[in-house]
């Protein structure tokens, strides 16, 4: 299967913007705060949040920066981000619709670039990281928080297959080692890496996770069986546990931050 086209991704997320806006992992997850702690935003800096969805990162950073730009392929997500900014009473969040592979921003315009829960959808990760690095100012920081896999081929294949079933616009969840390579290729200096961050302490509900992406009941059952019948090391990595008709599990995040030094 080829990489999803921008129109497919925009449609997938545009149709489900409301569900992502109220998703606990997206709206409240811990990685937003880790990014703020690691990247240390300063009041006169500009933030670009790539694949902003309904704006949880842009809105969380907004009180600490001069301007936050929420950037997404789906206009519906940007409307949701605008509402989230109003609810949070922040007035410095602007929305721009576009594609990460062709960012519509001049070179070195942002001190901070983030992308959370989105890079696994990028059709060309190298091009996307190069574009994010291009718009970063010298001394600027980039922070990624996204689904990840360990350096274990079996768990890697399992987890990416599960995520693609959940959402066909998934391209790949990358390991921390792969992320280090992407940043090195883009001339960025890696500052910190966590390769297993949990967004919500009580674990994910499979039913909630699938409902958010609009998966069919057949896909839901396939994912349920995959998780419950997985090899022990995979179940341990994903912290799989039955919960009545539901299954609780974890989708670990990699959080990696880097600096543009030249």
């Amino acid at each position, binding site marked *: 299967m080829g990489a999803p086209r921008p129109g497919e991704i925009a449609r997938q997320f545009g149709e489900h913007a409301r569900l992502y806006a109220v998703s606990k992992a997206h709206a409240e997850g811990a990685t937003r705060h880790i990014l703020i702690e690691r990247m240390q935003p300063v009041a006169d800096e500009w933030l670009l949040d790539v694949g902003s969805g309904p704006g949880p990162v842009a809105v969380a950073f907004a009180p600490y920066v001069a*301007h936050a730009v929420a950037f997404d392929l789906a*206009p519906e997500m940007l409307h949701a981000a605008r509402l989230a900014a109003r609810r949070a009473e922040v007035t410095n969040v602007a929305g721009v619709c*576009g594609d990460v592979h062709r960012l*519509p921003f001049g070179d070195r315009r*942002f001190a901070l670039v983030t992308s959370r829960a989105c890079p696994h959808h990028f059709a060309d990760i190298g091009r996307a990281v190069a574009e994010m690095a291009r718009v970063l100012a010298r001394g600027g920081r980039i922070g990624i928080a996204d689904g990840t896999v360990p350096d274990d081929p079996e768990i890697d294949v399992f987890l990416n297959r599960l995520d693609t079933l959940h959402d066909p616009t998934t391209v790949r969840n990358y390991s921390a080692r792969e992320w280090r390579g992407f940043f090195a290729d883009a001339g960025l200096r890696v500052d910190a890496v966590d390769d297993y961050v949990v967004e919500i302490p009580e674990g994910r509900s499979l039913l909630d996770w699938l409902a958010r992406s609009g998966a069919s009941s057949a896909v839901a059952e396939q994912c349920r069986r995959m998780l419950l019948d997985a090899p022990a090391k995979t179940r341990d990595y994903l912290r799989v546990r039955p919960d009545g008709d539901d299954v609780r599990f974890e989708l670990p995040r990699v959080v990696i931050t880097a600096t543009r030094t030249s």
Partner: protein
Amino acid sequence: MVLSPDLLAVLVCPVCKKDLAYDAAAATLTCQACRLRYKIVDDIPVMLAEEAEKF
């Protein structure tokens, strides 16, 4: 609503990365080099070449 001058200052054409001409009345951003006109819908610039108007 008019796009903020701050945001306009950072926006370029996603294709050629050159500056854009802003028309507040028409709610468009135009790239003369690529001959593409990007729409601003509900105050959100839609910076996708495939959705821009060719002229």
